[in-house]
Structures are given as structure tokens and as C-alpha cells.
């Protein structure tokens, strides 16, 4: 464990600007967004989390995968698109979002298939997270067994101790930085404070909101009567999946002029009807019922079965931004999960 005076930290961060681009939470009209930072004072007093999840930095909403030229009388020329991957520091990531990066790694950096663009951005990015002290009412990381002080997925996690940050590393890259000045080993006093904070935040012991029933037979879960009901108010707008830090679904399409083409990928959503529609018109998920079931089961059953972790980090963006107040916590509770939360 290490520590650093806040002023020293921001001086150090500013010093990184020469070699790296830095994205930090910046307040816009709608809320906080990760935007380029050029060293001026950061206003983080009402900051709980960014509107858009951090996945954008590795898996952008829109990007070209390949490019081709179709000149008359010449063979088509095809080239891989090279993303501009400048070394990047992401500052101010919340622990839930940092964890989501580890989940996306399992999809985009698997044993058999690896996404080149994702990997390059990932390797070029240094993640400095900020532990949460005041979770929002829509936050439910702790009900999923995730601590607001967790360092997983961050290169460095900073914990606010008043005029100082306590600093923990979760990677070798992070550890190497913390071993050098201006960081210094944490004093016993700082460590005590950290321990006290950990005591205050409910211990991330049990993932109590993840219903037991979801580890059972799919044939039983699939036909639960609740699927016939919960989808009714959903508009299939897809906002919940676009804003989800772990949602990784995308579409691939070609954008072309007469002589040039780009094959691009853009975020897509299982909440859209045409997501699974076959060429013949047949659709395995024809109504909102099948789509909501897919969203819930993908996150809480299929992903855990394939990648050994729930594909939800409790950031609460889907709860906060759904136009019809569809609340995934309610669904989990109705499936048998429990949440120890006064506001509910």
C-alpha cells in the first residue's frame, strides 16, 4: 500500500501529459463524461460516476475494422484499419467500471479469438480508479459482492483520505509506478483509516442479489411465469445495454462510396428485434419477452457459465436511465435474490 498527497498526485498526473493522453471525468450539462484533460483543476465534488461506461475507451461505439479500395480495372485492395492507439491514462474510473474491463477482456481477448483493436487499446491504457465513498441510490455493486473499494481491473486504485490518496496496485504496471516517487509507502495512520473505511462499507462477502435459482437447470428458469410479465413496459429502446459497462454486442456493416469501403462495427443490443432476425424473416426472439429474458439470463446465467463471473457490476446506469424505470434489481429480487437496502 502506498500514499500520496492529493496536490502531489495531480502534479504527477499533469507530468504524464507529455507522453500520454489523459481522459478524466468532466462535468457537462448532462453529467460527467470521460473527456480529454489538459491539466486544469478537476471538479469532482458531485462525481458519482460517468454517464457513459468506460468500455468506450477500448470498444468504441463506432469503429472501422477493415478498409478497402475498389478502383476500376484494378483488383480490390483490402487493408486492416489501424486504430490510433496513443498511450492513454484513464483517470477517475469507478471500481465497478474497472471490474467491467476484466469482464470485457474475457470476451475480446479469449483463448481462441482475440480482437486486435481491443487488445491494442487495452495494452496502451493505464487505468487509475477512484474508490467510491458515496454510492448513488441506483448503485448496487455491493449486492453483487463487489466492494466500492475494490482494486480489480485498475492499474492503480486511489482511496480518498482527505488531503491524501491511499494508492493500491492491481497490476505490475501499477506496482512499478507506486514504488517510485512521488508515491511513498502508506503510513500506519493511513492504513488504519483505510481499514476503517472498509469496515464502514458493507463487506462484499455474499453476492446476495444473484438469485440461487439461476444456477439451476435452464429448462426451468426459461419458462418462469415472470418472463411473461416483466417485459410489458419495456420499449426495447436499448438504452440499458448501450449504457451497460459489460454489454459487448455489436453489429458489423459496410459503409461505402463508389471506390472506397469501410467495414465498421457499432454497438448493438439484444433488446432490438432485428438483432436475431434471420434472412428468411424467422426470428428466434420475436417479442420483448424473449429479449428481456436474454438480457437477464445472459448477464446472470450464460455469462457466468461461460466466463465464471456475473456480467453485471452494479453500476446502476440501466436503472437510472431506463425511460420506463425497468429495474433489474427488482427482477433479481423476484427471482429470489435479496437486497439489503433501505431505499427499496
Amino acid at each position: 500500500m502506498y500514499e500520496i498527497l492529493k496536490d502531489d498526485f495531480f502534479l504527477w498526473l499533469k507530468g504524464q501529459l507529455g507522453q500520454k493522453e489523459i481522459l478524466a471525468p468532466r462535468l457537462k450539462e448532462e453529467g460527467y463524461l470521460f473527456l480529454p484533460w489538459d491539466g486544469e483543476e478537476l471538479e469532482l465534488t458531485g462525481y458519482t460516476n460517468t454517464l457513459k461506461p468506460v468500455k468506450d475507451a477500448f470498444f468504441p461505439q463506432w469503429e472501422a475494422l477493415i478498409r478497402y479500395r475498389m478502383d476500376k480495372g484494378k483488383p480490390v485492395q483490402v487493408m486492416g484499419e489501424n486504430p490510433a492507439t496513443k498511450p492513454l491514462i484513464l483517470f477517475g474510473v469507478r471500481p465497478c467500471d474497472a471490474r467491467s474491463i476484466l469482464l470485457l477482456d474475457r470476451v475480446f481477448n479469449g483463448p481462441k479469438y482475440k480482437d486486435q483493436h481491443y487488445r491494442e487499446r487495452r495494452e496502451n491504457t493505464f487505468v487509475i480508479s477512484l474508490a467510491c465513498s458515496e454510492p448513488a441510490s441506483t448503485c448496487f455493486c455491493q449486492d453483487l459482492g463487489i466492494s466500492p473499494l475494490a482494486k480489480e481491473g485498475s492499474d492503480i486504485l486511489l482511496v480518498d483520505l482527505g488531503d491524501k490518496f491511499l494508492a493500491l496496485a492491481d497490476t505490475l504496471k501499477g506496482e512499478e509506478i507506486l514504488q517510485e516517487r512521488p508515491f511513498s509507502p502508506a503510513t500506519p495512520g493511513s492504513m488504519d483509516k483505510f481499514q476503517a473505511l472498509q469496515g464502514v462499507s458493507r463487506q462484499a462477502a455474499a453476492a446476495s442479489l444473484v438469485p440461487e435459482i439461476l444456477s439451476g437447470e435452464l429448462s426451468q428458469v426459461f419458462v418462469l411465469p415472470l418472463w411473461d410479465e416483466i417485459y410489458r413496459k419495456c420499449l426495447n429502446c436499448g438504452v440499458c445495454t448501450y449504457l451497460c459497462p459489460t454489454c459487448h454486442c455489436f453489429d458489423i456493416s459496410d459503409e461505402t462510396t463508389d471506390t472506397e469501403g469501410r467495414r465498421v462495427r457499432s454497438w448493438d443490443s439484444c433488446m432490438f428485434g432485428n438483432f436475431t432476425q434471420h434472412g428468411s424473416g424467422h426470428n428466434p426472439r420475436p417479442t420483448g419477452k424473449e429479449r428481456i429474458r436474454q438480457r437477464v439470463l445472459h448477464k446472470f446465467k450464460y455469462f457466468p457459465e461461460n466466463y465464471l463471473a456475473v456480467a453485471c457490476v452494479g453500476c446502476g446506469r440501466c436503472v437510472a436511465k431506463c425511460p420506463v424505470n425497468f429495474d433489474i434489481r427488482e427482477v433479481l429480487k423476484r427471482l429470489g435474490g435479496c437486497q439489503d437496502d433501505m431505499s427499496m
Partner: protein
Amino acid sequence: MTCQCEIKNPYLPYQMEILEVVEENPEKDLKTFTLGFLNEADHGTFLYTPGQFAEISVFGTGEAPFGIASSPTEKGIVRFSVKKVGRVTTALHILEKGDLVGLRGPLGNSWPLEKFAGKNLVLVGGGFAFTTLRSLVCYILDEENRKNYGNLTVVYGARNPGQLLYKEELQDWSARPDIDIHLTIDRPVEGWWGKVGFVPAVTEQVVTSSENAVAVVCGPPVMIKFTLPVLKKIGFTSENIFTSLEMKMKCGIGMCGRCNIGNKFVCKDGPVFSMAELEKLPAEY
């Protein structure tokens, strides 16, 4: 620390030249494309097994997945039979010999050849879904491979003779002693020399034993639906019946998230499944 191994862009297709286009049906909406590698060196890296699929790029339009209809024993070419249904397939149908397309793959799993070794094989196909069954038949009929498999029985049906793929080849196969092939059409037509009747009924007639045998079924959903009980009646267990699924696909590598049935991605864990595997999944396909 960071791995320095070079990661290739998985979306970069091979450059292919169309060597031949064959119109398969009188309606001209079903064509077989034979593709060759533009760069000689690519040829050796496209290593596939019958049952796999690949994404064909029509530059200027987009990509779509198709089962590989050729067999790896047919060196130097890759073949696909494509029905014209939408954007990409229509654009592909306009292309001619000498035009270039992209090819990405091979993708997915394959017919489980290791489970087929030493077994009698019953292949049941319908309509234009015969593509990867053709790949399998060609593979087994190859001189090197034939001895590794028992009897080969094929039942292949279509609405009318015009809709059968690979007509010349089917005739050649009919004349061979090492394959027992039964072609059938739905209703009698003048000059037709094969059987008349639906695929499930013909299967019931010609397949008499499931002893030391596996069955492979590929075709329209209704054909599969009525063929399965027939195969079960003959004695095939769910573990010994295999089929190939089609889903809407984009990435083909388990990332874009649209082709799952339960926790299985059809592009990565399929497209080939045993009925025993499918029975464990919801019928969301």
C-alpha cells in the same frame, strides 16, 4: 507482462477470385461459387473440416456466413452454394467469374469426424441445406478416407428435381458402389428417375438399421422435425444424431453476441450439435 506476440486482425478476409459460377436451379436464385485464393500463400492457412462455415465479403455490400460446400480433399478451391435472399446474397449473385470477393474463416466446429470413424453413416438432407453434407460426402468418398468409414447412405430430397444441388455429381454418386444414395422429390414429374415422397418417409423406407451407425440431418426445420422421430424409431439415439444450425451471425467468433442459444454460441460452439446437446438447450432458434 504484455504479450508481444502479434495479434492479427480477425476481420481481415482472404482475397479470393471467383473461378466458376454454376446456376443450380431453373429459378436462378441458387448458385454455386468456386473460389480460388488470389495469394498462393493463403491457401495453406485456410485449413478446414467438413461442417465448418466461412464469411464471404462482397466488397461494397457486406459479409454473410455460408457453410463450406467443398471438401478439404479438393485442393486449391473453396466452394459455396448460395441462395439469393437479401442484400449480400443478391450482390454476390451479380458477380461473375474473375471477380474478387473476401473470405473469412474457417469458422465454427465441424462434423465430428472422430465420432464417425468406423461407423455406418446415414446422411439426410433437404433442399439447399445440402452444402456441408456434400462436403462430408466428398471427404468420405476420397480414396484416402473411404476405408475409415462403414456404409454410407444418403437420402436427399427437394421439392422438384430442379431444386436439387449438384445434379451431375449426384448422378455420378448414384453409379458408385461405395455410396448408397436415394434422391427424392415431393411430387411425381415426368422423366424423374429417383424416388417420390417426402424425406422422412423415404428415410423410413431405406434406412433399416441404426447398428453401429450415426445419422446427420440437414434441411428445412419442418423436414428435420419429421425426420427425427423416424430416426429414433429406427433406433438412433440423440447422441448419434447430428445437425447444423443457422442463426443470424455477424462476427462468427463469439463476440458480437447475437447467435447464442442459452450459453452456447452457434458460431463458436456450433454450428454442429448432436440432438442430445440441443435437447439440453431451449428451442430459441
